[in-house]
């Protein structure tokens, strides 16, 4: 029962209070770069969630059983290379065996190789000393949180297209200021789930 509440609070924290993008500033590039249309934002975040969960599933045992306790300083090098390889493998696998998913997500996968959100979540799982199951749920929560932020923000940006924007804020500045407002709204969740 205890572990169930722990997992529930991980999910709540990852999605709302400790949101990957809006509270931890990880994955800002896709958040600002691929959020103009709701559809692309959704596909991108599904791809990110998939890669996050699979990467965590692979890097966690590598750290626990191979790197720890003697070679912990290799964490950065090993993790980034493993993630890059995993993304390639997922791409090849989908292309060969699950063509419809590849058609929907294929373009996004190469964009995720060096995404700091993916490397960040695998490292945070280690730093926060989570168990294997907790790590997997934490990665899932982070992915879902990323998805929520992307979807909300793409909705805002679709509205911005037709809005009248002051001359000096045109372009990237207005995008950042709207991100600030979306992030402000997430502050309201602070305190939920401990």
């Amino acid at each position, binding site marked *: 029962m205890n572990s169930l509440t722990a997992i529930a609070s991980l999910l709540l924290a990852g999605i709302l209070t400790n949101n990957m993008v809006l509270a*931890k500033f990880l994955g800002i590039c896709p958040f600002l770069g691929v959020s103009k249309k709701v559809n692309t934002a959704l596909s991108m975040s599904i791809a990110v969630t998939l890669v996050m969960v699979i990467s965590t599933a692979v890097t966690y045992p590598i750290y626990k059983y191979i790197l720890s306790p003697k070679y912990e300083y290799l964490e950065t090098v090993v993790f980034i290379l493993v993630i890059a390889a995993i993304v390639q493998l997922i791409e090849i696998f989908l292309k060969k065996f699950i063509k419809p998913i590849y058609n929907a997500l294929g373009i996004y996968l190469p*964009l995720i190789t060096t995404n700091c959100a993916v490397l960040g979540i695998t490292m945070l799982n280690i730093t926060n000393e989570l168990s294997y199951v907790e790590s997997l749920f934490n990665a899932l929560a982070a992915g879902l949180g990323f998805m929520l932020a992307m979807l909300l923000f793409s909705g805002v940006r679709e509205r911005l297209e037709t809005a009248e924007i002051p001359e000096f804020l045109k372009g990237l500045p207005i995008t950042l200021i709207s991100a600030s407002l979306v992030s402000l709204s997430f502050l309201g969740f602070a305190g939920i789930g401990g």
Partner: protein
Amino acid sequence: MKNKNLGYFTNGLINENPVLRLVLGTCPTLAVTTAAINGIGMGLAATAVLVCSNAAISLLRNIIPDKVRIPAFITIIAGFVSVVQMLVKAFAPSIDKSLGIYLPLIVVNCIILARAEMFASKNPVLPSILDGLGMGIGFTATITLMGAIREILGAGTVFSLPVTSQFISPMIIFLLPPGGFFIFGILVAVSNALAKRKGKDIVMHLGCENCPSRGACNLKDTPESCDEKIIKEATVNE
């Protein structure tokens, strides 16, 4: 010749300032700038990695096969990041604590991979080192400035010295994530306004040149934003 070398160095300071003009490395820019001192720590760590990786990649530029260059670059960068991480942990533990996970995440900092791909892999060693140094100092100066602004507004101090905290109650919101996005937006707006006055383009969106995954992506080298290209590609697929 000397002037040309100087040009490589000054390029990163203003004209191609990595944060405000190229919009590279947005994650650390937003995440660590809650205090000016964090900006300096992050900036110097990234500069050290940038100079070393630019030098190493430039030396190896004729040996690394084109097809595996991205993994090769990442490995080189990750190596230097680990070195810097251990040095910071040993000699500046307080900075290590305040930068936390963002220190190892230098490895996926777009500035470093972008300069490796756009500059170091095509140029000799000396210009690459100067380019790394200029970009690094431009990055450090900008995020320190942003850290100082957020610190003054959010805590009333600069480098932990009280400035306005005596007579204005600090607005904590500027230390929280929304304040980060807001101040960054305003800084980009100011830099856009200055660029416009000089007749240069304003920054409209994050383009391919800013993307760390550019090398792996097959949509690169068109002036549209990522969104537009992906939408176009997706409709072709259907």
